[in-house]
């Protein structure tokens, strides 16, 4: 079982991202449970979504406390929310940011970091920083758990309200291509 926690702000499509990812994983034969965390439904409020993927059926409809992977689609969120809470040893961070690895504060439990300047990509494609589909591309690239084709097909099956389907497909592609994956050397305890 692999547990992913998505973080974002209301209005950026973090919950939709979890839904699209769930569809793609199911299409590849996996069992998935994706649950959003509820808060006030206001633009800008921190939002989380929990996604579990497994080869066998799952019964527990619960939140995720020890994620293997944290996918953060907002670059300013880590300053206000502890996105690493409960991160398992050797976990993965996938972060939307324009900063480089050295500029980010990352706990020692994280062994792999994937960075993607999703804001730049989406400003170019949409004119607005809606980073969810771009970061799904980053997820595919960083984890290898789901193929770009399945994500692309899942996008086709989701109604997009504001931006066009083509733009989102392009964002997905670019997110995949322009993600940098870094493996962190574990520091020895002194």
């Amino acid at each position, binding site marked *: 079982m692999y547990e992913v926690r998505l973080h974002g*702000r209301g209005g950026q499509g973090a919950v939709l991202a979890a839904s699209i990812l769930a569809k793609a994983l199911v299409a590849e034969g996996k069992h998935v449970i994706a649950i959003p965390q509820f808060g006030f439904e206001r*633009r*800008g*409020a921190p939002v989380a979504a929990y996604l579990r993927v497994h080869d066998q059926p799952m019964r527990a409809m619960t939140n995720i406390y020890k994620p293997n992977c944290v996918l953060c689609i907002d*670059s*300013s969120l880590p300053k*206000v929310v502890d996105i690493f809470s409960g991160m398992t040893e050797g976990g993965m961070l996938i972060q939307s940011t324009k900063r480089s690895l050295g500029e980010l504060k990352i706990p020692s439990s994280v062994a792999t970091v994937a960075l993607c300047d999703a804001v730049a990509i989406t400003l170019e494609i949409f004119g607005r*920083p809606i980073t969810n589909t771009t970061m799904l591309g980053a997820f595919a690239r960083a984890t290898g758990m789901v193929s770009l084709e399945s994500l692309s097909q899942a996008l086709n099956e989701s109604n997009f309200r504001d931006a066009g389907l083509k733009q989102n497909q392009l964002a997905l592609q670019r997110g995949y291509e322009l993600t940098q994956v870094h493996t962190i050397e574990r520091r020895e305890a002194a």
Partner: protein
Amino acid sequence: MKKQSIPIFDQSTIPNNLCPIATEYSKMMPGDWRSSLPVVNRKKCVKCSICWLYCPVQCIIERSGWFDANLATCKGCGICAEECPHGAIEMVAEED
């Protein structure tokens, strides 16, 4: 809050499991999640106060020669820029 003319009620005087109440001010400000902010062109501003009238969070403050937004509470909705009859306000992307 800078001034509190009547002291906030002291919760320790009652049991803590009766009617839910709150007496601590939240540190959250609407400005925290803004993604663009209004920038006023002071030469164009004539202090007509249309922006002040329309602002949904009443964050427009009067300066000596122009009106400006209080960035602690401005949530970047852009209504002031939309309504300004002189086009004096421009919405600019927030840096993070």
